[in-house]
């Protein structure tokens, strides 16, 4: 009988929930809890520092401390609002031509985060022209060029990290670019050796290196090796969203849906991870799938309404894998590839294209056929495309 009680309670709650989701309403009681705020400790520190900054607005040390705290919080919590707070705080300062270099780099970081790549590059190029000693300048430029498929420029910037950044960071950057220009195996070997030798390296740098290494193994078809490196990375930080997403992709490829659900269950507040969780839940026929889908769809609709184009790859994947709306998925994937030409973007575009019934009428962009980076999946897909 217990299950009947639980069922009745669940139905009751669902009814109430639907009511609550509908329209503006006046809660029955003044005691009803509207929200429970979680205020990170860093936010309390920020508030104190902001008060100090109000008194001495020219204190760049305080300003930079606040910005670093905001950006770190934004990345850790995957909460884009912290980037907005940092931007609003920095914006009035950016009219001043004599800002410390670190402040300007933070500004470029914010621009890059919201995919304003041209504006970010404009600032970074100026800094690089003045021979900046800050490795972030070159690293950010390398990442932007890489995401646009401009490997020559990306490599040049990676090389500029020599003498400015650690050996691991430099090699990770160089290996990542070179692996896309016909040197996958040698880049993998070089990075693997470097990681093995860099025991005392910075944890974040190590995680980045391990992720790149695992990605390279994936492209080589060595899934077991890739998994081992993803797990090594997760051991260092089990809440690194980037490595979690990539590892979940590996598991999805192996159809290990239960494993994905277990891995990502607690990360529903991160859109990119929620998408993987939704794919796994829907593929394995879980009831919760529908709720995830509704949440994702509303989030994408909101992004569209806001005019954002930052996560189009995920949007396309959502319509492809979950909604089975190939036409829409293809349209978004094409739109995404105008700005982002990373291997994952190219491969997704091809995957959708191969399933697209009207593909003859809506051809692939020409540049896709010039994307000849080593990747067993890509090679196979390009072969199939040429056949059709």
């Amino acid at each position, binding site marked *: 009988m217990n299950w009947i009680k639980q069922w009745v309670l669940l139905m009751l709650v669902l009814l109430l929930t639907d009511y609550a989701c509908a329209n503006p309403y006046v809660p029955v009681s003044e*005691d*009803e*809890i*509207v*929200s429970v705020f979680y205020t990170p400790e860093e936010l309390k520190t920020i508030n104190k520092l902001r008060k100090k900054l109000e008194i001495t607005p020219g204190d760049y040390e305080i300003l930079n401390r606040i910005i670093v705290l905001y950006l770190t919080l934004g990345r850790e919590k995957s909460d884009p*609002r912290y980037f*907005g707070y940092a931007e609003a705080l920095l914006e009035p300062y950016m009219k001043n031509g004599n800002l410390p270099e670190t402040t300007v780099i933070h500004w470029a970081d914010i621009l890059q985060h919201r995919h304003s790549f041209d504006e970010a590059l404009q600032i970074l190029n100026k800094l690089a022209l003045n021979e900046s000693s800050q490795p972030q300048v070159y690293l950010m430029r390398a990442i932007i060029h890489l995401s646009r498929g401009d490997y020559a420029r990306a490599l040049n910037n990676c090389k500029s990290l020599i003498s400015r950044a650690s050996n691991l960071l430099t090699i990770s950057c160089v290996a990542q670019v070179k692996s896309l220009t016909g040197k996958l195996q040698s880049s993998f070997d070089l990075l693997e050796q470097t990681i093995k030798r860099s025991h005392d390296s910075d944890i974040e740098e190590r995680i980045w290196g391990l992720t790149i290494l695992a990605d390279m193994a994936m492209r080589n078809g060595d899934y077991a090796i890739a998994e081992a490196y993803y797990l090594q990375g997760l051991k260092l930080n089990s809440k690194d969203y980037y490595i979690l997403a990539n590892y979940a992709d590996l598991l999805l490829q192996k159809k290990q849906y239960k494993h994905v659900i277990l891995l990502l269950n607690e990360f529903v*507040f991160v*859109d990119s991870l929620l998408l993987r969780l939704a794919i796994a839940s829907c593929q394995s026929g879980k009831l919760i799938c529908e709720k995830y889908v509704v949440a994702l769809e509303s*989030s994408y609709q909101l992004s569209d309404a806001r005019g954002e184009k930052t996560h189009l790859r995920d949007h396309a994947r959502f319509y492809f894998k979950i909604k089975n709306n190939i036409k829409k998925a293809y349209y978004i994937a094409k739109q995404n590839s105008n700005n982002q030409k990373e291997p994952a973007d190219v491969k997704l575009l091809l995957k959708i294209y191969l399933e697209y019934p009207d593909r003859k009428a809506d051809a692939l962009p020409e540049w896709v056929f010039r994307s000849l980076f080593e990747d067993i999946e890509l090679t196979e897909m390009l072969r199939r495309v040429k056949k059709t």
Partner: protein
Amino acid sequence: MTLKLLQGTVFFMTMVFCGLCQAHQSSHSQISLKQSGKVMSGGWHISVDDLERSVGVDTNGDSILSWGELMQQQSLIESLAKTHIKVIQGQTLCELGTGNVMLDKLAAGFYVYLPLEIHCPKIIRKLNIKYDFLFSFDAQHKMILNIESNDSSQNTVFSNNSRVFEYDSLINNKFQAFLEFIWQGVWHIWIGLDHILFLLSLLLPAALILRQGVWYEKQTIKITLINTTKIVTAFTLAHSITLALSVFDLVSISSRIVESVIAASVIVASLNNIKPIIHRRLWLLTFVFGLIHGLGFASVLNDVGLPAGSEGLALLGFNIGVELGQLAIVAVTLPIIYWLSHSNFYRTRLLQTGSLSIAALAIVWFVERVAQVEILSWV
């Protein structure tokens, strides 16, 4: 205690099924309005989280926000709306009224809903809507505005770099724009006393004939109608030409000159009835002055503004409206004029005194418009 526990359970389950699977979103608020006549009503959705982080609504600082606590922030939320949302019609700020706060659950979490009612002085066509809440705190904050009117809906997004929206109720509805501008045309001829008196001055002798400088014989209906058609057609043709030229910025003459010449045209047309100088080709006089009247209509039209995307259709509608307005005046006045023209009194007294009165009024207008002073406040 049991009640609180139940409420807590409902809240928790609501979050689980409705919200907690929601990823962190960039900050946004929403204003949805329905426009009807001079009023726009709807409401403003503001995230509870945004309110807490920017202005602080958890007054007791226990990190738990109850509905009671939120209700106490009514005046704060109202003042945020009045400070950060401005709706301007022409140069006048529309009055923004607010209702009691409510709660809403949107996909991105819990939102406060503040009912809004915006009253503008005139029927709403074009508005300047300004919004600048939160941008100085969160540069990525966006506000999604939706306005529904006449079965069409307009959406726009306000952002840090885009804080003003020029609303035009007709922008997406060509047929509606066409009908609206027909009405504008009719209305502007009816309230434009100078245009009416110009036309009336020309029509007063339409049923008479001039012999040796004196009006005295009654014309047939046919000739009266021909005379009237000539005058109305000449006026229509002339003002249509200059109206189009002016609206599309091909002709530009200062409104002071245009308005003064319009007054002068009324003087000339009315005095011509008392001391007829031009009577054979009255349509030519009508045509020449009609050109100036067209420029006068254009200044009215420029104030109202043509709806983007359907300028041509709206202009055509306005012209049709002016003609319909004119025809209505003719339809009412011509039978009376024709009937009165039988009498001696009309030919020897009424025509003269009527025309003289019109001329007197037009002289005052002329002086007012040339010297930019106000003599008669009621016309």
